[in-house]
């Protein structure tokens, strides 16, 4: 309960930063619109040649892309910068003040800096959702659409746990940037329906590094596809990953050597 309270206190202090990043707000808006436009064009090109992709139609694929951007926007706002900077923060000894506070040190390490200027991205994502819904051949129930949104937050927590585990390696390696770039690139697979990844790669991306379903599962739930089991599996994997991330963080902190 206290962790949630402090999370909101961090949101409040970071929101006060928004004025400092006014220019960034508009730049983010334009960049995000550009990227989203490029991917929509890519999907338009694919579906210009085929009717379905691994059983998904154009509107459905666009919906996966919309949930992907929503998931990415939330990650960007609440924790992305912290993971990118973590190795430097650790090597400069800036973790000192964050690990002596009577609150989750992992929360202060990875949700300390938030980027509310990235809220601009949500406007673009809302537009993308509207376009995806207009392209769907069926109507989505508001309840299931909301459940998809709820499941996106579970994906956000799962991704946070995965990044937390990777970043914790920095206590041994001093720099885990290469891992992070790798995982960042691998996370791009989440923007397409998970069914296109088959065989061993599909299993790895679903169960070992569970990234394939980050956006696909929320879309499947919204579309009421017959994949109820995967929703439970994703929730279960998230709980396991959260526990592993917390244990590994506590273990890694023993190696923290500060600086200066």
């Amino acid at each position: 309960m206290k962790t949630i309270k402090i999370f909101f206190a961090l949101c409040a202090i970071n929101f006060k930063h928004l004025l400092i990043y006014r220019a960034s707000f508009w730049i983010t808006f334009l960049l995000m619109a550009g990227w989203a436009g490029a991917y929509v064009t890519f999907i338009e090109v694919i579906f210009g040649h085929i009717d379905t992709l691994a059983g998904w139609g154009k509107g459905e694929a666009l919906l996966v892309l919309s949930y992907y951007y929503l998931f990415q926007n939330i990650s960007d706002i609440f924790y992305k910068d912290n993971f990118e900077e973590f190795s430097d923060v650790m090597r400069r000894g800036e973790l000192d003040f964050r690990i002596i506070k009577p609150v989750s040190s992992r929360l202060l390490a990875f949700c300390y800096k938030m980027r509310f200027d990235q809220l601009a991205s949500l406007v673009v994502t809302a537009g993308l959702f509207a376009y995806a819904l207009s392209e769907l051949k069926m109507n989505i129930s508001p309840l299931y659409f909301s459940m998809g949104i709820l499941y996106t937050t579970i994906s956000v927590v799962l991704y946070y746990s995965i990044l937390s585990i990777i970043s914790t390696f920095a206590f041994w390696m001093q720099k885990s940037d290469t891992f992070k770039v790798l995982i960042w690139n691998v996370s791009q697979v989440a923007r397409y329906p998970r069914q296109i990844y088959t065989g061993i790669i599909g299993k790895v991306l679903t169960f070992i590094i569970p990234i394939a379903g980050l956006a696909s599962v929320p879309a499947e739930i919204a579309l009421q596809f017959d994949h109820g089991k995967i929703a439970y599996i994703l929730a279960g994997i998230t709980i396991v990953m959260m526990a592993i991330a917390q244990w590994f963080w506590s273990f890694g902190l023993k190696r923290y050597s500060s600086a200066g």
Partner: protein
Amino acid sequence: MSIIHVKNLSKTFESYKKEPGLIGSIKGLFSSETIYSQAVKDISFDIAEGEFIGFVGPNGAGKTTTLKMLSGILYPTSGDVEVLGFKPFKRAPEFQKQFGLVMGQKNQLWWDLPARESFILNKAIYEVSDHDYKKTLDELTDILDVEDFLDIQVRKLSLGQRMKCELIAALLHSPRILFLDEPTIGLDVVSQRNIREFLSEYNRSRKTTIILTSHYMEDIRRLCKRVIIIDHGSIIYDGDYKNLTEKYAGDKTIHVSFSDAVLENDLKSLGRTTMANSTSAKINVPRKDIAAITNRLLIGFPVDDISISEESIEKIISDIFEGK
């Protein structure tokens, strides 16, 4: 009663040796030599509630490492450490609520926001009630005279103003122990004095235990009754500040001036002269002989003025570190 108990505490850091140059960097990709440096070696001490302790030592002596182990930032390599009945490295929230930390070279305030915003965040983190927060903030603001710049962005404050705000951030939850690592570093003389006066008064009125590391002997001299001198990771003195002079300064210095010219050779029989001419001299004399030598000077020489001084604490400590 002891609230900090340290027994045979050690901390060893690991690093890797890199040969110089590009070839060295390429070699380092395949193999590297691990270097172990013992920053703190087997130190032991106890601190009672309400004490104001000074940790003194040259750069790299192990002062800050010790402070970081006491506050739970660093995990000890070996030995026992207990603070307020807790093992600091376990980082129990009940323990963390009872101490504050200020580091002169790092800051916990949010750089782009006014200090007040950081205080509000700390209020939530330390679960300080609205009433206590207002009361403590009003008191500290008043004593430190910071009311005018609480709403100015931290990055626009002077170093002295920022340090005062750092102190408030560390004290808002009324900790029982305050760890201070070089809090006056880089401050001008007036700001140093203000911070010292505040700390002295705070320790006296609140009975807060304060552990201070500083390069400035003036900080230690004005604030700390007890001093722990640490060098190369080991404690070489732990005791009263006043006794330090008696223990390590074997000599006192007699400053004397004469109304008539005297022979320098006559003075040499009195002790080790560090300066001598026909009208004045400085003579280093063993502490136990000071009365007898002063007497001989007054009887045997045309003394115009005479005074006796202790060796400066800076000189004593520098001699200790240099192994003299």
